[in-house]
């Protein structure tokens, strides 16, 4: 048996020697701890370069040109696009509105999500808790377009349920058509959609609080406020901050919901920066100008992120010190 198999290998060897050598080389390469991690990164890197790096560089390049699909000749403008944007009243107005949107939306979602999360956390033995949780997360799973469509119908002045209720009290309201109310009405939908996300984050954060610490506080008869300050918050803040960060970045880019519900109107009361960008790029076809604005927004988002990460780092350093 032994002899036979050796013989077979000896016979096969001349034909496969080159292949074997190639294989041995590959195996050696894969086992090399300096090479292997790099190999693992290659697929991700290829995608990252293809889908992120090249388009971003392209966008940066475009931002220095007058590049319009309406006129065939692109022209190098240097920083003119940036100059235009920074002097554009409409941009500043949209940006201001966006900041209000982000700040109001994220803070209400966080506060509400945290409170509801606390309630859910405390209801571990409540029957039907799982079903309640699943239902609570429904808004998050629905696409913004569908949610927007629902609320358009709900807000509809002639047959929408909101105005029906208002009419019972003798009033009449067109939420999406009123310049004073539209922003709040759309913001409400955003809050409705994303509060469950903050509940989820809160539950994850509260789950990271060690049980013994909560039990110790219970034994020590600490009031709730102090349990919160000295136990819950120090343990939960990292995950909470992550949630707030994700919501901030996402909220900053809000487009679909508003595009469907108001297209930035009435007037331009719900015109956020992402809508303006979309309009300039895909309606006015001013790609150079839009690229410059996109770059400014990218830098703004990075600034947000850095601030959050800085705060997180700061507190984690204090923790370790």
């Amino acid at each position, binding site marked *: 048996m032994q002899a036979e198999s050796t013989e077979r290998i000896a016979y096969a060897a001349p034909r496969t020697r080159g292949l074997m050598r190639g294989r041995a080389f590959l195996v050696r390469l894969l086992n090399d701890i300096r090479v292997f991690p790099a190999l693992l990164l290659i697929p991700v890197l290829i995608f990252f370069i293809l889908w992120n790096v090249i388009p971003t560089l392209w966008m940066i390049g475009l931002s220095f040109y007058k590049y319009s699909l309406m006129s065939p000749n692109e022209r190098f403008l240097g920083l003119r696009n940036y100059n235009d944007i920074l002097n554009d009243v409409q941009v500043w107005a949209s940006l201001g509105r966006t900041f209000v949107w982000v700040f109001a939306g994220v803070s209400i979602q966080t506060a509400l999500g945290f409170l509801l999360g606390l309630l859910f956390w405390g209801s571990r033995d409540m029957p039907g808790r799982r079903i309640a949780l699943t239902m609570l997360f429904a808004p998050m799973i629905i696409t913004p377009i569908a949610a927007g469509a629902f609320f358009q119908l709900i807000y509809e002045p002639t047959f929408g349920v909101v105005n029906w209720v208002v009419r019972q009290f003798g009033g009449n309201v067109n939420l999406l058509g009123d310049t004073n109310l539209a922003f709040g009405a759309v913001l409400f939908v955003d809050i409705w959609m994303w509060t469950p996300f903050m509940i989820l984050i809160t539950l994850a954060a509260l789950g990271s609080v060690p049980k013994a610490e909560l039990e*110790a*506080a219970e*034994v020590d008869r600490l009031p709730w406020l102090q349990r919160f300050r000295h136990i819950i918050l120090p343990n939960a803040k990292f995950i909470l901050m992550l949630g707030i960060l994700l919501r901030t970045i996402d909220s900053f880019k809000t487009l679909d919901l508003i595009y469907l519900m108001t297209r930035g109107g009435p007037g331009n009361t719900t015109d956020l920066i992402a809508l303006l960008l979309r309009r300039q790029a895909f309606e006015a076809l001013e790609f150079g100008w839009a690229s410059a604005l996109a770059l400014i927004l990218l830098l703004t988002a990075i600034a947000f992120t850095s601030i959050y990460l800085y705060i997180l780092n700061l507190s984690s350093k204090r*923790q370790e010190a």
Partner: protein
Amino acid sequence: MADIRLEGVRKVFGGKVFAVRDLTLTFPSGSVTCLLGPSGCGKTTLMRMIAGLEEPTSGEIYFDNERVTHLSPSQRHIGMVFQYPVVYRGISVEENIALPLTHDKRLSPAERRARIESVLETLDLAPYAKRDVSTLDNGTRQKVAVAREVARQPRIILFDEPITNVDVSSKMQLKRALKRLVKQHSQTIIYVTHDQTEAMTLADEIALMRDGMIVQRGVPSEIYDHPSDRFGGWFLGNPGMNFIDYRLDNGALVGGLFAQPLRLNQTTEAHILVGIRPERLRVQTTPAPNWVPARVRRSAIVAGGQHLLTLEIDAITVKAKVPESLRVEEGETVYVACDPDDLTLFDADGHRLQARILA
């Protein structure tokens, strides 16, 4: 101060895991009781039921005749130190100790101050008083947790393996501090541990637990010297008791450890387990009448500078702890004897026998 009375307390997890089986016992007021037992014997569950962190499946718990079975931990007015050191974050050591006290309306500021000073002193925490707790190592944090509970002066303090998660260097320190503490304060203390030396040094009384039941209760020396059960002999001591199987020969133990047959006053058992602690076995290098020859199979140094010998006597293997001065090599022959008073006799099921050796 309060006594703790359990009546038929049982805890079953998931309908089939019996963590604690129908315990009825009293922990006397002002005493330190150690619940000692291997992992999973139900000692922590028992303590958590006393704390109110776990509700008994059946049975009642009383503190000084007050039924507390269904009260929450905060309503029971107890103190508890957890395995993992719990400190309240973002404040100093002093503030940590003060935090639960600030809600005690009956306490005057001067009294509060005095209590804090006193525990800081007892636990050697004075130099750290102003330090932020997050800057402390686990050992010191655990001290802070202990100090906080002691300062509250609850009627009962429960310790759940407080030393387990502390690094070796702070372990000794913490042990000393705890010892000083239990001497000074006369609170009712229940201390859960799987470490026998901890139990031996701290306890007024040890309750040895196994499989959700208390196997034996008593003062440490009694439990150590006269285990009521083979389990106690095996679990206590490092290493535990030697057990040697004997078949009674005309009501006497013959051969093995004994040069002369040892006659028992009771002869109902056919099988007898003879237990002897390794440190009670006498060993010497020169032969003498009534000493049995034994071959040294292994010799190892153990804590305290003693040697642990593994000896072979015919077919029997026993361990003996001898002073370092007795120099023996592996393979050498030594001579062994034992005092009949140091023997503990068990029946085949491992329960201690009342039978005595006749002189």
